[in-house]
């Protein structure tokens, strides 16, 4: 049978078996609504608070009241950005963010611009690290919110969040951090790193999809963007998704005990993959920072060929990964992240993103390293852009 190698964990992760087991009773027997007063309601409430406590512990929050459950990373980012922007309109109408944020940060910011808010998009260097002097310059008296991602899911670069938090607080603004790609991959402490709001997704730490959380430090001025029955202390209405919240809690608990060891293991696999590809394939390059990067992220580009063709070819050999190419996106635009680090369009088109996970082994990495050179060779033979010296 053909080997199957799943290296697209940024797109979706398998739910941990222990998480599934923890969730199971809450679909049927334990059907209570945490707002109800009877014992079913009490059980649901207890399970939800237990899950909340595990997330509080994972991110180093001070109090249970600082973690709010949402429907996932996208909602958390929307709530943080719009919620803080609207609530602090009396102080100012300016937001500072970066050129490499996820669409769920980018697009709420652009929506706010249409409503009259000002947004500054701070550039990054060629490694994808936020240009701190530009950030300092961007923050004004009217700035209420600075939003910078912890680590970029597309090219892996980790940002100097503590320093950015320091700068933000000196200018009396709030710092929101989209940590969806980072929580559960690397240890994060919101207190030590000067974070006021932080978006977390469950699936990114092997929990179920459709659930996430927003950490909101006590004292942060924010208002809801969804109105209703006043759940989550009024910040996020809607009946709580108990099975998923329980699953996210279990995932957080597992992440807290296992992240460090797993991060070390993945870092070795990541570098084996990056080196194996860039050393064996001519005109191939790493995207993002060589060391300040997520342990599971290998983003590599191959000149003269296009990413979707690479993905289709790898899929035929049982390997799953992603691409920064326009041809694999819904918008037909190449990744704004890869363009922001200074790549030309055709370079961004030829990028592959491998994101490793718990199930991946050294054999998986070696399988990909062995398979890809022939695929690249074949596509370069077809491409009119390939220079003579690289033609077969």
């Amino acid at each position: 049978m053909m080997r199957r190698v799943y290296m697209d964990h940024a797109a979706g992760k398998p739910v941990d078996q222990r998480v599934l087991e923890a969730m199971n009773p809450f679909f049927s027997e334990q059907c209570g609504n945490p707002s109800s007063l009877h014992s079913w309601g009490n059980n649901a409430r207890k399970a939800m608070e237990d899950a909340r406590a595990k997330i509080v512990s994972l991110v180093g929050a001070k109090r249970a009241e600082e973690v709010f459950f949402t429907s996932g990373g996208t909602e958390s980012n929307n709530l943080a950005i719009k919620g803080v922007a609207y609530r602090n309109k009396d102080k100012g109408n300016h937001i500072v963010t970066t050129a490499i944020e996820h669409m769920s940060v980018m697009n709420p910011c652009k929506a706010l611009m249409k409503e009259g808010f000002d947004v500054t998009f701070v550039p990054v260097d060629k490694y994808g690290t936020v240009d701190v002097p530009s950030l300092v310059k961007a923050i004004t008296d009217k700035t209420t919110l600075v939003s910078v991602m912890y680590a970029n899911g597309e090219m892996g670069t980790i940002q100097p969040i503590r320093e950015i938090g320091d700068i933000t607080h000196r200018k009396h603004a709030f710092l929101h951090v989209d940590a969806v790609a980072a929580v559960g991959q690397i240890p994060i402490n919101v207190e030590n790193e000067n974070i006021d709001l932080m978006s977390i997704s469950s699936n990114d730490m092997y929990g179920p999809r459709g659930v996430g959380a927003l950490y909101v430090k006590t004292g942060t001025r924010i208002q809801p963007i969804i109105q209703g029955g006043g759940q989550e202390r009024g910040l996020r209405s809607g009946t709580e998704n108990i099975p998923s919240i329980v699953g996210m809690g279990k995932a957080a608990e597992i992440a807290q005990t296992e992240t460090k060891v797993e991060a070390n293991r993945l870092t070795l696999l990541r570098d084996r993959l990056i080196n194996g590809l860039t050393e064996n394939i001519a005109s191939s390059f790493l995207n993002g920072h060589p060391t300040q990067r997520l342990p599971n992220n290998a983003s590599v580009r191959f000149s003269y060929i296009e990413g979707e063709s690479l993905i289709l070819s790898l899929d035929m050999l049982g390997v799953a990964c992603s691409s920064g190419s326009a041809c694999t996106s819904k918008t037909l635009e190449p990744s704004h992240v890869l363009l922001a680090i200074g790549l030309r369009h055709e370079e961004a088109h030829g990028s592959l993103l491998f994101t490793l996970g718990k199930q991946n082994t050294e054999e998986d990495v070696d399988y990909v390293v062995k398979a890809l050179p022939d695929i690249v060779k074949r596509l370069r033979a077809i491409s009119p852009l390939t220079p003579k010296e690289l033609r077969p």
Partner: protein
Amino acid sequence: MYTDKVMEHFKNPKNMGEIPNADGVGTVGNPVCGDLMTIYIKVKDNRLEDIKFKTFGCGAAIATSSMITELARGKTLEEAMKISRGDVADNLGGLPPIKMHCSNLAADGLHAAIQDYLKKKGANK
């Protein structure tokens, strides 16, 4: 996402390569957009005696290039000029809607190659 026919042509493209002393060459697309295609033709007695392609692009771009060479080979220039983007897509069992306008350039490439041939022929008279 793609039909079996598209994947077949992607895996084993027909007539891939260059014709060193081609009678006509047509290049369409732009690497900035993610697709670039060059079609080479050899013409004898007003018929496409040989046709080859080189393509930078996605699965659809490579498959449509391969298909156009199959459809056009042996045809008269007039017949070949009538092959449309729709014909290429139909012969591949259809393309995803988003690929219809961006990657389905092969017919344009063929027409450009024929026009190049006609232009050169005109200049030689």
